[in-house]
Each structure stands twice: as C-alpha cells, then as structure tokens.
C-alpha cells in the first residue's frame, strides 16, 4: 500500500481536489517503506520496517491557508480532510507572503528507482550486517553500523491543473570500526540509489584499515596545515555553507552572502576559480525529486558557483517579487565538480600534510564569516613525502568554508555522500592553511 503507482496516486489526488470549495487547493501524497538494521559490539541490536503513506491537503481563501493530513483514502475520508483544511484556512491569520498556487508544470524525467533496493528483504539486511560483523571479527576489531533503505513515492497536484509523480529508492550504510584496545577508530559510508551497488563488506574493510592504522596516534601542534579532506570531511563544511545560499537573508543584510551597503554578492568571485557547485535533479549519480517540497516549483540544472563566481542564491517566489529578482527554487541535490585524482594520488603529491577522514559536530560560530567549528574523527593521519607516515590525534578546527574554498591546491574524484537530508557528489580536496585550533584526545 505504501508505494502507489502514478495512476493510483493521480486518482486519489483528483478525487480529493474535486471536494474543494476553496479559492485554491493543493494535495500532496507521499508514501514510503523504510527498513533498517543496527548493530554494535559485533552484534545486531535492533531492526525494523516502517510503512507510511500520507495525504496532505492545503486549502486557500485569499491569503489564508490551512493544511490537514490523513492516512486513509475512502471517499468520506478524502472529503473530510478537505473540509478540515478549509476550516483551518478560514481560522488562520492571513499570510502576506502567500503566493498563488502553480498551474501545470513540465517536470524533468528522473530515473531514481532501483528494483534491487525496492525488493530488499530482511534476510538481505541481516546479511549486509553480518558481512560487516564477520569482516570485523576476522581483524579483531569491533563493529557498530547502521543500514537504512527506502523506497518511496511522491505525487502532487493543484486545483489549477498541476500534477507530478516521482518514485525513488535509496540506501545508506555507515560503519564505525574500533580496535579492541580502544586506541583506533575508522569510519566509512556508502550512499546509493541501487542496493545492488552496495557492498557492506568492502565498505567495512575501509573502516577496519583506518581503525587499525589509527592506533597510538601522535600529537601534533595545532596550527595551520595543508590538509587532504576526504569527501565526507568536505561535505560537513560545504553543507553548512550551501544552506546559507539564500537571497532573502543576504538581501536583508544578515548573511555571509550580504553585500556591504545592501544587496547580495551574486556575480562576485568569492572562491578559487576551480570551484563549481550546481544542482540537477537528473544527475545520474544523485537523482532527485524534480520539484520543491513547498510549492512544487520545477527544478532544473542550476549553477550556484561557477569559475569561483557566485551565480545564484535560492530565491522563493515571494522574495523574487519583492526584490524584483529571478525565482531560484531550493534544490534537492548538490554536485561539486572535482578533479580526476584518487585520494591516494592526492596523498602521493603531498610533501607534508594531514589526511582527514571525516569532520564531526560542526556548528556555526559566526554567520558573518561563516566561521565553523568542529572536529576530525575516525582516521586522521600525517603525510610526509607522498606517504602516510603515522596517525595523529584528532584536531578541533575553526575555519570558514569560504576561506577553505579559496585555498584549494587540488581536487579528487567526486563521491556520493549524504548531506543534511539529501545526497551530494563531493570530491576530496587538498587545501592549504586549514586552521586547527586545538587537540582532542578522542579516539
């Protein structure tokens, strides 16, 4: 029941909208089946399957809006949910920022549904965990991991004739391997659309190697270092920065994207000329729903930064009207263009530097400069003359991704990582003068 076909979904949406007596109405149907398995101390701790399907209906009278949701779809229920949304709308205060609902949209076609993920069984999940635990036991390390897989669909419609349907699958696996003496820790992630492309055993091996190699880390003085940040280390900082690519807060003067004296920094060269960020729902590596969640705006390829120059900031329809700018919808994925080098090749070309597996507990320190703090975790190593020489203790960093993206020395091949609530393609980066402010004893 959780995954409806295009025609089943359309039938429900058409029917519920027919009950509308409001000026405008929209309906959004979303269903998913999510499975998970969690393990720690080399033993499975919990597993579960969650099915959910929900219809959200919005009714509008002028600028008054009401939303009601329901998870049953009999005719009576459909009429009831619409009536409730209408009652809520009448009781609501006016929203001066409400924009008219959209008419028909030409959504791009996205292929983001893999049968292997859709058909995953509890046994496959158990085997995925077992492959990781067996690999850990062989190397005498302790595994803790989590696999979550999802098949889902979303369908949207408005009383003005808009309709869209999108089905997708995804699976995310993360694992932490720790040596039995507690002195080494390694981590790895696999984020895929197609479960068939996931190998929890080989991903686990990466984490095991890092755990074993990271034992008895030496302390280096905090300071500015050349670093090789693996994709998961980059994504923590970049994710924060991209969430600030917002025209309204910039125009209002309260963002690192604000321009002195008013306006925003679109058109300015703010980064190294190799920096290129864009979003594209049709990207085969990170396929994404081709419309925005809020108002079903059509998504298409959008450059955020190209040749180091800020090209676009997210601007919703209300703010576009106010600021007389172009509407730029909020994306559902992110791609950072990288280079052609493996992480090994980046290490080989480094005389002195630090390899960072991932970054952790990142928080905003100063939104004016996008200064972030956080820590390295689960595999930090000193590089000398093109080779990993020894593990080093973890560092706390205080760094702005804006500064980081001006100090790029080299870039690796982009890899798929999870970032906030979406997937992204992010390369490893070699960066000079990265600021480590103190040492951490954490393993």
């Amino acid at each position: 029941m959780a995954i409806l076909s295009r025609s089943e979904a359309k039938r429900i949406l058409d029917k519920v909208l027919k009950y509308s007596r409001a000026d405008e109405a929209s309906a959004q149907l979303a269903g998913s089946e999510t499975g998970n398995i969690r393990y720690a101390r080399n033993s499975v701790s919990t597993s579960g399957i969650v099915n959910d399907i929900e219809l959200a209906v919005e009714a509008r009278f002028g600028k008054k809006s009401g939303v009601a949701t329901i998870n049953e779809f009999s005719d009576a229920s459909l009429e009831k949910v619409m009536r409730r949304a209408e009652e809520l709308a009448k009781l609501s205060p006016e929203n001066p920022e409400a924009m008219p609902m959209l008419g028909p949209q030409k959504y791009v076609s996205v292929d983001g549904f893999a049968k292997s993920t859709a058909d995953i069984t509890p046994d496959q999940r158990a085997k995925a965990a077992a492959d990781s635990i067996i690999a850990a036991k062989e190397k005498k390390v302790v595994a803790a991991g989590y696999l979550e897989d999802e098949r889902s669909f979303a369908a949207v419609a408005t009383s003005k004739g808009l309709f869209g349907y999108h089905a997708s699958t995804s699976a995310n696996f993360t694992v932490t391997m720790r040596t039995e003496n507690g002195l080494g820790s390694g981590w790895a992630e696999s984020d895929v659309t197609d479960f068939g492309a996931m190998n929890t055993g080989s991903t686990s091996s990466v984490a095991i190697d890092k755990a074993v190699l990271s034992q008895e880390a030496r302390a280096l003085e905090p300071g500015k270092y050349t670093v090789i940040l693996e994709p998961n280390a980059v994504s923590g900082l970049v994710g924060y920065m991209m969430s600030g690519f917002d025209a309204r807060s910039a125009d209002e003067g309260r963002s690192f994207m604000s321009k002195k004296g008013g306006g925003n920094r679109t058109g300015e060269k703010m980064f190294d000329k190799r920096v290129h960020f864009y979003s594209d729902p049709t990207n085969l590596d990170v396929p994404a729903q081709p419309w925005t969640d809020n108002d079903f705006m059509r998504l298409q390829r959008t450059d955020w930064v190209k040749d180091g120059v800020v090209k676009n900031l997210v601007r919703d329809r209300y703010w576009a009207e106010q600021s007389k700018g172009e509407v730029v919808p909020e994306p559902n994925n992110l791609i950072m263009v990288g280079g052609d080098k493996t992480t090994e090749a980046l290490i080989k070309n480094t005389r002195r530097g630090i390899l960072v597996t991932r970054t952790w507990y990142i928080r905003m320190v100063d939104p004016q400069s996008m200064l972030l703090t956080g820590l390295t975790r689960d595999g930090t190593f000193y590089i000398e003359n093109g080779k990993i020489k020894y593990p080093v203790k973890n560092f706390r960093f205080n760094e702005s991704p804006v500064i980081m993206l001006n100090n790029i020395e080299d870039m690796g091949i982009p890899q798929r990582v999870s970032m906030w609530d979406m997937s992204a393609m992010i390369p490893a980066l070699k960066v000079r003068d990265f600021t480590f402010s103190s040492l951490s004893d954490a393993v």
Partner: protein
Amino acid sequence: MERRKFLKIAGAGSSGILLPLQGIQVCAEQLLNEGMHSSQKRHLADVVLNTARKAGASYTDVRIGRYLNQYVMTRETNVEDIVNTESLGAGIRVIANGTWGFAATNDLTADGVARAARQAVAVAKANAKYQTEPVRLAPVKGVGEVSWQTPIQKNALQVPISEKVEFLMEVNNSALEAGASYIQSALYLVNEQKYFASSDGSYIDQDIHRLWAPLQVTAVDKKSGAFKTRNGLSDPVGRGYEYLAGHEKDKIRGQTTLYKASYDMAEDAVLAAEQAKAKLSAKSIEPGKYDLVLEPSHLCLTIHESVGHPLELDRVLGYEANYAGTSFATLDKWRSGKFQYGSDKVTLFADKVQPGSLGAVAYDDEGVKTKRWDLVKDGILVNYQATRDQVHMIDQKESLGCSYGDSWSSVQFQRMPNVSLAPGEKKYSAKDMIGDVEKGIYIVGRGSYSIDQQRYNFQFGGQLFYEIKNGEIVGQVEDVAYQSNTQGFWNSCSAICDSSDYRLGGTFFDGKGQPSQVSAVSHGCSTTRFDKINVINTKRKIS
C-alpha cells in the same frame, strides 16, 4: 507506522533548522479531545500482555501513546506557520528467548494490538539467533493502576491560537520598536499522553507537558555590512502556559534580566534588541586565559554536553559508537573510585523528579519509579545513567529509571535524565562572584557548541559576554568562545553560587540513536566560576 518527518524552518542568515514532527496534522481543537479512556487502554494493554505471554514472551511492556504537538512560528509582523499534530498508537516490547523484540501499530483495536504483540515476539525469536548474551532485566515491582500529570496550572493547548499569535506579535513589535532589524519568535508545545503497562503488573497513565518559547533578534548595520544576533534567554520547561506570565518575583535583575519559574518574553525581546545593537560596537575579545563566570542559562548546555552525554552507559559501552560516539568516562575510571571528574566543589546529580524540569515524570518508559542519584560526588565519578537491562553491567540491582522512547512507534532506550550541578552551600551571589574575579568574562545564554565524540575537547560560545576587570564589569565584548577539556574544565571549578541562584536550563530536541530519536532534558545549576580557561577570538574576514 509512520515515517519520521521534519519541518524545515529558516535560521537567520544561516542554515535552516529541522524540527522533528510526528503524527498527522489536525486542527487545534482536536488537540483538546479527551482521547481514549484509561479503561479502554487497560483493556488493550491486557490483550497485549496476554497475547505476548501466550506467544512465548517472558516479559512484555506496552506503551499506548497519544502525542500532541503545536508549533506557532512568526517573524516580524507575520505568522510564518502554525502546525498541530496528533500521533496515536501502541509500541510493544517483549523478551522472548532472552532477546528483545519490538513492534508498533496505529491500529488500536484488540485484533490490531494482538497482531503487533505476536509480531514483537516473532522479531525477538528471530533476533535470538544472533544474540550472544541474554537480556538481564533488573526487577521492578508492579505498582497497579497509577496516574501522574506534569504539575501545570494552565494547559497551553487550551489557550486559543489567536491568543498565542497576539502574544507573539506583541513580543515582535516590542523588539521592532526597540530597534531590532528582524525578529523570529515561536511557541513549541508538546503533550505526551502515555499509558504504560507491563507484565510486572503496572498500569501507569501519565500526562506530560512541555513548552518552549524561543526568539532571535537580529541587528543589522547596513553601512558597515555587520550584523549580530541575540537569542532569547528563556529555557524550555516542563510547565504550562503560566510560564509566560513573566512575574516580577521570577526576574533576576543584573547585566540583563534573567528568569526563574516564569518568563517575560516581551521584556526579553526588548533587551535582545538593545543588546544585539550594542554587540555591533562591542570590543573584540583579546584571546587568552580568563576566569569564566558562567550563568545558568549558559552553563546548562555545558553540563549537558560534558557531563550528561559522557555518563550515558550505552555510550560508555559502545552502543552509540557509529553515531554520537563513545565516552572518555570508561568503566575502569568509575571502578577505580578515584577518578577526579571535577574539583571537590563539584557534585553533579541526575534525576527525573525536579518540578518544572523537562525530564520530570513519575515513572520512566519501562515502569521504573523515578528518583535522584549522584553521578559525580565531591568531584569523584560515582555512577552513570542506566536502564533495567544495563544496571547489572555496573553491579547494581535497581534500574536508575532512564528509559525513554520519543513516540509509541520508537523503541525505548537509555536517554539522559535531568543532570544538574548542586549549588554551593555557603551564601554567595553572582554579584559576589564577579566581585572576586580579577580578569574574567561573565557569559550569559547558550550559543555555538561543539564537543568531540568521546566528550573530551569542547568549544562553547554564548549570547552575551561581559568583561570583568578587578571585580567590576567593564563592558560588553564580542567574538568570544572558550575551549577546554572536560576533566580539566570541571577541575578548574573554584566556586558555585548558593541555591538562591539555582535555576533550570534545558534542551528541547536532543538527538540520539539510529534511527534518531529526540528527547527533552533540563539541567539545573547556580552561577559557577571556572579558573583560567582558554578563550579564543572568533572574528574572521572572508573578503
């Protein structure tokens, strides 16, 4: 079953915040419905207990939960969103073949819950094949039929939405009149109606209320391009709408107004506007070692991160290794009986009983009567936080009552109780404390925070920073963050104000577990002094 949902709200000038949201959206009036009568819940619970026993469970508990949320969010003169949600269902946990099994359903018929009970037993039996160590449950005596309610005076859900909107608009207008460039304010209201029954013979009906009224004011200097924010100084509470009365008796007047059992949101919004503007021209801190005087609305978060989390027994044992991490406070340190967590002035206690706290309940989510116990006594690590199946690992026979699940559909596990710093015994005020500091900073309110995965190294900011020179506050400063190591930090604690200064801070959406669950928890303390802490300057230029 339902998918975890999030409501994305914009943060000023930076990243959005994802608010957890459970249940379906309903009209506000539906939140006032009585819900299922306790006799009906008792009947369903008995169906579950009997079905599970017959299917082979040696222990069963069931939580029939109705979870209500109301979020009202505004900016300047607009209401941005009003969300009402209701979530209703039952979560069933069993032990069969020495292994946990869990299943949940929103089908609250006798057949529906019986099916889920059998499913839970089947899951337990299936998982038993991979189990290496059978579950050992600390005994709990059944308490029969009991009920408990958060001691509120005014149920916030019964206050009409229009009144709440009017209230927040008044708050926003006060800030705008006082010169704020922007203001965001919100009310987050939570009501958990939780019926717990277990094969131990308990039928516990609890009605739990929580409220949070955050605000953020931004001041922008268009000429220089600089902007500063000041967040509200209230804390989330386990209280009713009466918390927003802002009684004079609950105000502490000083550098800014601080609040005890009630909050004057409009007054705080005005102060926030004035102080955000003052931040624009405040002196940038000279980095170095300072004696820090930490006010409770700030220190509560430092306690949460550097004491609350590292003393969660599941983290210590490695169950959270892949997500939040492990802990430096390992069992060998505790077993030594000599691990100096802090100076001899430091006693940190856990509880789920303090009135007005977010953690206060009569029984936890596995039917254990809540209580208070010491975690750190006179500086020495003496205990952890634990659930029924964990206490045997720390040689104890009685659960510490730390079990919580954030929904009927989430399996309960070990969550942080309130963790608080005991006040000093000698009469000593914040003013006295500042008077005794030669070179220091008085920090108010919680700001940026980050700590490593074993809880050694941390960095904290704040909302307001005042430089202290020779016992006097000489002015507001900016760009302050302090870095320390948990053990070093708590051992540098040299003075704690007395109980007249004690108040509760807290956090509303603390995340833990995979899939992630939230919980709300309070931390009490009085203003406290920490000597010679490393302060860094956080100002950077990006162009």
